[in-house]
């Protein structure tokens, strides 16, 4: 009866809790099983950010944490200098005019990641 009332008022059933836990745990499992993918992603991330600011490559940390109902990718990217000489040494493939350079200094950067 209590369960029925809970259901009526939109409380989660234990099977939906199980489903949600399973989804998150498998995302974490799959990430842990794919260290090379994480390394590649980390390298690409640093490459992109390096176009705009100078970062300390050796101190970059990328971690995954469970945050409530999603898996979050937390990147801690120490910025050494924002005063890069223009033009940047590795311009993007389709580089726009230099005036479009944007600056970002937002460690840790956060973005949700998905897997599976």
């Amino acid at each position, binding site marked *: 009866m209590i369960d029925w009332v809970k259901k009526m008022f939109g409380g989660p*059933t234990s*099977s939906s809790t*199980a489903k949600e836990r399973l989804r998150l745990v*498998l995302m974490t499992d799959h990430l842990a099983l794919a260290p090379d993918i994480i390394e590649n992603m980390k390298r690409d991330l640093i490459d992109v950010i390096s176009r705009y600011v100078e970062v300390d490559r050796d101190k970059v940390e990328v971690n995954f944490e469970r945050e409530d109902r999603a898996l979050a990718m937390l990147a801690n990217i120490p910025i050494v200098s924002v005063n890069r000489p223009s033009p940047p040494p590795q311009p993007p493939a389709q580089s726009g005019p230099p005036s479009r350079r944007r600056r970002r200094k937002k460690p840790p950067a956060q973005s949700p990641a998905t897997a599976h």
Partner: protein
Amino acid sequence: MHQPVPHEVATPAAKLGRAIVVTSGKGGVGKTTTTANLGTALAQRGARVALIDADVGLRNLDIVLGLESRVKYHLLDVLEDKVSLDEALVPDKHSETLVLLAAAQSREKDEVDTEKMRALVQGLRERFDYVLIDCPAGIELGFKNAIVGADEAIVVCTPEVSAVRDVDRVVGLLGNRFKPQLIINRLRPALVKKGKMLSVEDVNAILRLPLLGVIADEPEIIITTNRGEPLALRHEGETANAYHAIAARVAGENVPAPSPELKESLMGKLGSIFGGKRA
């Protein structure tokens, strides 16, 4: 999701039989009971079936089949050339075309020579239509030795977070070579309906495997296991028929995957109201 999976039909004469490992990662999900019942169901169809208990050190398949008093030699005796294969194969009590190669109870999993295990399974495939290998829990050497001779896998999963997670891991380890197919075991349709248990759909939305069938959590499985008479010896009753349907699908027949979920149980409710007899 419920389409049958095409397979070659069981093999008469010269063609090699199929070696199928029954695995799950997690222990206690019903691998051994499933192996015994699937083997029995296949044999009841007339196929020649050899069951190998690869759970060295924790032998159980002989108990479920009711053959414990007939086991004289075991898997390691054969692998170590102490006895011939024929001396070690125990004929089943109930099904003429079924034999068991029991595990060693007082030995350890890492005593199994992986290459000899491969050769043994290969040899059995020449003589039997099906070689079913009951895999130990875990993903260590015992698992590796159980899968080494197999060319297909059946994964057994219960509708629980831990079991699904472990099956996911095992399927990753198996890779595509084994064409893994899924049996969902111990489903309780009444709980699924109340939102208290993962449904078949929930489980397979994650695993995405071809579904061989679903077995309900029924007391008659416990009772038949107590007696050492696999439920699949019967040819009536929903759960016995589910095993037969799974065997038919394994044999390549185009029958629907059995699932107790759909007919949740007006019958069950009526049964309990009227004190209906169940097993």
